[in-house]
């Protein structure tokens, strides 16, 4: 207890030095907390751009569809599946999709297109399709031979809203699929690559075109929380059963994207390592200086019968007092900064394109990991760095120390 008291009061002896040490620790902690918050925030934001707005967090397909996406590998009872899962805890929305490819033509121009049949109501609810319609309007509730094209495809086809677009493809029964639609809207999904080929139809129109009555290729599911996707997968699997279906989270159906995101995250750890190194060097320097200055005092304490381990504790406690104080202030500062960055975001100097998606702004995140990882790392670093000076102090020979004047 008395050791604790001495350690605490020692903090206030060289106020400037303590302040400098505290600032180093505070700065290191706050930088680390901000960079983790940023890394986690941009990670979640990028993933959300892909998953929440497009791919979904979870996808259901016929078994083998992802390896070999054919027109014939369909989900035949999608309404029933939808009804079963729509009440599940943590599920925000779901939507069916039908995919095929074909030739799209407007007047003289033609281009290859990916035809995507969507249920407008469900798609709006799940991925906010209507918000991606940049010009014109979204689909009518009932099928009306309307088409909505990606902005890139519109350019390629030199088309305008109101034009007629013809699709030529092959239907599931082997016949030629061929029909004419009115272009009612233009989509800008943020994914430029897919906007160059997307040709959206009302699901019923698409089913009719490809002779796939009541059938779809994919059910996309949106989870309420990105972090709860795995648990939702388990719930869906047990509710729906897996016969003939594959139910996968985004980490699996978009594996390359996931791997790229993970690699991106490593960058933050290198940054933290460098920050910690700076803190370590700074703290070692001041602790060592302090210990050398007080060697006489440790000699007195030893002569009075203080055990070496108690002197050791004295040094470790003193640096940890400073560390804990600095971290507490850092907690407040970094939470405020992370919060501001999470609502205001930072505009990218040059917009970054990632897998076809354009990012003009990135957002940070307020979360526990960005606080406790730096806190633990700083405490451990500061303690480790104090071990050497503490051993030096503990080994003070009282007789030698007393001859220092």
């Amino acid at each position: 207890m008395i050791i604790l008291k001495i350690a605490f009061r020692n903090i206030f002896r060289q106020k400037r030095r303590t302040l400098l040490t505290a600032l180093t620790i505070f700065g290191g902690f706050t930088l680390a907390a901000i960079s983790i918050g940023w890394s986690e925030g941009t990670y979640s934001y990028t993933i959300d751009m892909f998953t929440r707005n497009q791919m979904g967090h979870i996808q259901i397909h016929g078994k083998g569809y992802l390896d070999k996406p054919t027109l014939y590998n369909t989900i035949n009872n999608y309404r029933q599946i939808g009804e079963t899962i729509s009440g599940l805890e943590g599920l925000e929305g779901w939507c069916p999709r039908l995919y095929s490819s074909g030739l799209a033509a407007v007047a003289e121009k033609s281009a290859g297109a990916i035809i995507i049949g969507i249920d407008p109501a469900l798609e709006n609810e799940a991925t906010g399709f209507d918000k991606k319609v940049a010009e014109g309007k979204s689909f009518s509730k009932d099928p009306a031979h309307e088409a909505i094209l990606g902005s890139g495809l519109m350019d390629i086809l030199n088309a305008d809203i109101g034009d007629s677009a013809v699709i030529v493809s092959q239907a599931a029964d082997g016949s030629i699929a061929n029909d004419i639609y009115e272009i009612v809207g233009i989509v800008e999904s943020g994914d430029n690559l897919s906007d160059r080929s997307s040709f959206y139809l009302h699901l019923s129109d698409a089913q009719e075109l490809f002779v796939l009555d009541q059938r779809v290729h994919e059910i996309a599911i949106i989870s309420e929380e990105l972090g709860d996707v795995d648990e939702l997968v388990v719930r869906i699997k047990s509710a729906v059963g897996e016969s003939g279906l594959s139910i996968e989270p985004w980490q699996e159906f978009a594996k390359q994207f996931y791997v790229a995101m993970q690699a991106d995250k490593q960058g933050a750890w290198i940054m933290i390592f460098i920050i910690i190194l700076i803190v370590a060097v700074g703290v070692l320097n001041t602790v060592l200086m302090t210990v050398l200055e007080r060697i006489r005092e440790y000699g007195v304490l030893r002569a009075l019968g203080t055990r070496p381990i108690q002197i050791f504790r004295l040094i470790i406690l003193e640096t940890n007092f400073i560390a804990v104080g600095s971290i507490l202030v850092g907690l407040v500062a970094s939470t405020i900064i992370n919060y501001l960055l999470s609502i205001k975001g930072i505009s990218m100097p040059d917009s970054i394109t990632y897998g076809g998606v354009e990012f003009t702004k990135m957002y940070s995140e307020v979360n526990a990991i960005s606080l406790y990882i730096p806190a633990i790392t700083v405490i451990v670093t500061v303690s480790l760095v104090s071990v050497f000076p503490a051993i030096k102090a503990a080994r003070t020979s009282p007789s030698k120390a007393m001859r220092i004047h």
Partner: protein
Amino acid sequence: MIDKSREIIRAENLVKTYEDDSVPVNALRGVDLVINRGDFLSIVGPSGSGKTTLLNVIAGLDEPSEGRVYLNDKLISEMSGRELSDFRRDNIGFIFQSHNLIPVLSVEENIEYIMLLQGVPKKERHKRVEDILKEVGLEGFTKRFPTQLSGGQQQRVAIARAMVSQPALMLADEPTASLDSATGSELLDIMRSLNEKRNMTFIFSTHDKLVMDKARRLIVLKDGKIASDEVKE
């Protein structure tokens, strides 16, 4: 003819050679010494004669190169580490020339320090602190910090701290060296009165004539050897 029951320190053939420099220094060259309970003994001698070394070896702060030291028949020259720390804490009070006090602790806390290490209960601690402060003439100074005291007052606190746990032996290395002679003489009077009232054994080194005169036994060191040992009456 030595009466064993009166004996508190027995030092046999103490040799101390400092080897850390290129030329070895013989600080003690065979010191034999018996100190009795209740002695008020002064070790004198010119600077470099080995006074500090002898006190440190007796206190167990330093190891002799050769020879043995017994305190109350316990061989302390061969104890080590934690055993020695605890032994020192419980048996020996040490007063240095200066800077004896822990600057961040108040007078009261400085005096309590050893009792805190020993685990003496709070009530008992307070009582002993009050009593001892009265004896060294520093009543009412409990809450002061070392920087708020004069040199003489600081040394009195150091004595109080060393005394408070009733050690068998008090060692003081030139306790008056940093004080003016009037204050030094006052300090010696306090030590002398504690010696008489509590029959506490004091060994102190000095090269101050005034201080020597207060001793009841005078040992003169010269080049690491005892040159004379006289008991005054």
